């Protein structure tokens, strides 16, 4: 992929604005509340867009494109089942507690609701996870830019980290939010033309359906398995995801999705920055509207990529499919039995030596993560290509910024102020927050380099994070809706749930996988799942259920807080805000109904 002056210019303009915004916003970051929570002054439409953009890191954009190529329209489940219901729930029912309790972070809510040890558990695990996630983003971006453009990995990491550091250091959360809004519109500007042109090339939706029917049959499924999202969810064998509807709805739709959207401080922080309770509640609902539509922007390109033939001169940084074949035959010394040609836009996955990776079924593995970059290279001339890459870079960087602002807040308020130096002045904590930004980024850079050297460590870490996240929602749900839940209950529930996730993972394996990072490390696999995704969903279900049961049991045997202490923290003791006199578009219940109705409609259309 070759960039020309126009592409570089667009990218530079973006960097200039991103840094400029940080510089201008510095003067508004005078107190710690300004720096960490934007002084709770941001209007709902901005927090709404930031809410969804903070979530829309490049791993999501690239990952959803990859999943679109792998699983077809069923990938939309990650949005229509795996996000929208949870977003509606958090807006309607949980933000009154997050915002009304005046907690400055999610761990702080846990402290107010439960006790210090529950806060500490959540704060420390979240802080570690978020700073490592930032590192993984840096690593992924460095690798991608190296592969596509030949840019030096170290330079990409340091440059992106440096830019993020400058604007989050100067302007705090407000900087991050403003840049997230920029990122949102960049993605729209980059991907709408891509989808329009790509769809035109395949002959519209019916043309795409026909091509994917061929692909689906070639993979051993029904013709519609890639273009119908529910009809093939009866059994794992009928769809490329390898899951059935119950595991999907409960595992993804309930546990994982609610666990993320309702408890992850990265997104909740954006709603907490809103200018009023009403704005805070509307934030996820406003975010849900573009979230519903995003499958068309990020999943469709993946589906198009797998159904379009590779033009004769596609390649990565100068390598063509013909070169793949030449290298392989040269290595083997004889024509190989495997067809290495690139049937679609998606190239074969190559190992470090440049040889195609072969899966356990004897077929060449495809590098699905390259679906979106390949689409950009195929359909965009110079100019738009720069814009598309800029949108990708913006996604990576705003993901890093989101992680960094979440980290510096949790560090300063939940770890430093709580355990290291309580009772200091606000300007002291503001300074600590800025230092935390710096060392948070440094740790992330370190994590990025570690990930580059030891791929498996990153897989392992992300696995551990999944174990920690899985039970969280049970704790919050019980905490917010059952006043009998106690601190001891919450703490033991979280530990038990995390342990349950680990044990479940250690005793099961997805079909065809080797014991290790994929599972089965505790003992001989007790159960085999049809796919890694199914295993993930069921791990989540076990973890959540364990946490739920343990929390209830332990709470019944321990002392709860008195009612006066729980006002504003628990459903039964908090007045739900009345909004009957507000215009319809400012009423959360109305927005929620519209969002759910539209989502249902989309599910029906793509049934």
């Amino acid at each position: 992929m070759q960039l020309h002056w126009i592409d570089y210019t667009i990218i530079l303009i973006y960097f200039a604005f991103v840094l400029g915004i940080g510089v201008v916003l510095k003067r508004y970051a005078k107190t710690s509340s300004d720096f960490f929570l934007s002084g709770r002054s941001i209007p709902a439409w901005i927090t709404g867009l930031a809410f969804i953009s903070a979530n829309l890191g490049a791993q999501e954009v690239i990952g959803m494109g990859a999943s679109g190529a792998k699983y077809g329209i069923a990938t939309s489940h990650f949005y229509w089942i795996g996000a929208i219901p949870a977003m509606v729930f958090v807006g309607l029912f949980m933000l009154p507690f997050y915002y009304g309790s005046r907690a400055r972070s999610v761990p702080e809510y846990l402290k107010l609701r439960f006790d210090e040890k529950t806060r500490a558990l959540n704060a420390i695990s979240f802080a570690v996870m978020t700073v490592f996630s930032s590192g993984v983003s840096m690593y992924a971006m460095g690798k991608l830019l190296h592969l596509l453009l030949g840019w030096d990995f170290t330079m990409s990491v340091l440059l992106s980290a440096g830019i993020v550091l400058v604007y989050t250091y100067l302007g705090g959360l407000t900087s991050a939010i403003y840049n997230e809004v920029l990122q949102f519109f960049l993605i729209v500007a980059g991907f709408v033309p891509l989808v329009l042109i790509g769809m035109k090339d395949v002959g519209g939706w019916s043309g795409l359906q026909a091509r994917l029917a061929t692909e689906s049959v070639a993979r051993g499924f029904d013709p519609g398995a890639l273009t119908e999202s529910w009809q093939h969810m009866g059994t794992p064998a009928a769809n490329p995801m390898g899951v059935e509807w119950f595991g999907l709805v409960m595992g993804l739709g309930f546990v994982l999705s609610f666990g993320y959207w309702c408890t992850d401080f990265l997104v909740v922080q954006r709603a907490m920055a809103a200018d009023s309770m009403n704005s805070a509640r509307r934030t996820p609902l406003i975010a849900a509207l573009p979230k519903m539509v995003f499958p068309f922007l990020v999943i469709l390109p993946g589906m198009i990529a797998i159904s379009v033939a590779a033009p004769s001169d596609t390649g990565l940084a100068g390598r063509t499919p013909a070169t793949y074949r030449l290298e392989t035959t040269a290595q083997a010394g004889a024509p190989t039995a495997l067809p290495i040609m690139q049937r679609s836009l998606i190239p074969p996955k190559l190992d470090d030596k440049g040889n195609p990776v072969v899966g356990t079924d004897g077929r060449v593995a495809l590098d699905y993560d390259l679906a979106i970059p390949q689409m950009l290279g195929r359909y965009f001339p110079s100019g738009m290509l720069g814009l598309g890459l800029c949108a990708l870079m913006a996604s990576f960087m705003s993901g890093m910024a989101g992680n960094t602002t979440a980290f510096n807040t949790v560090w300063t308020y939940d770890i430093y102020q709580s355990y290291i130096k309580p009772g200091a002045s606000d300007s002291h904590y503001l300074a600590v927050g800025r230092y935390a930004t710096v060392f948070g980024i440094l740790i992330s850079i370190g994590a990025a380099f570690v990930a580059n050297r030891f791929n498996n460590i990153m897989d392992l870490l992300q696995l551990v994070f999944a174990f920690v996240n899985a039970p969280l929602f049970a704790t919050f749900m019980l905490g917010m809706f059952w006043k009998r839940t106690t601190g001891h209950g919450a703490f033991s529930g979280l530990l038990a749930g995390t342990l349950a996730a680990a044990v479940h993972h250690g005793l099961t394996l997805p079909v065809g996988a080797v014991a290790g990072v994929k599972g089965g490390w505790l003992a001989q696999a007790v159960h085999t799942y049809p796919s890694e995704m199914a295993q993930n969903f069921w791990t989540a279900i076990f973890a959540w259920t364990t946490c739920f049961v343990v929390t209830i049991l332990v709470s019944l045997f321990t002392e709860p807080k008195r009612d006066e202490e729980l006002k504003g923290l628990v459903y039964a003791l908090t007045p739900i805000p009345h909004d009957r006199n507000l215009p319809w578009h400012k009423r959360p219940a109305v927005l929620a109904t519209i969002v759910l109705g539209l989502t249902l409609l989309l599910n029906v259309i793509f049934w």
Partner: protein
Amino acid sequence: MDIRFPLGLMFAIVGALLAGFGVMTTSSTMYAKHSLGVNVNLWSGLGMLAFGLTMLWLARRAKPQG
């Protein structure tokens, strides 16, 4: 600072740049090769420019002192 100001400004500048580049390269072969013959630089550029100017106008309207 109203976010619509930098948002609008960035898209107006990038949009104008892309549209101008699109005009300059109308006879280039790259459009046939990539975007099915459509001058996507010009059209997207104009769209972004319109968006940017709208944002700037909204920002200006919100601020009485202009």
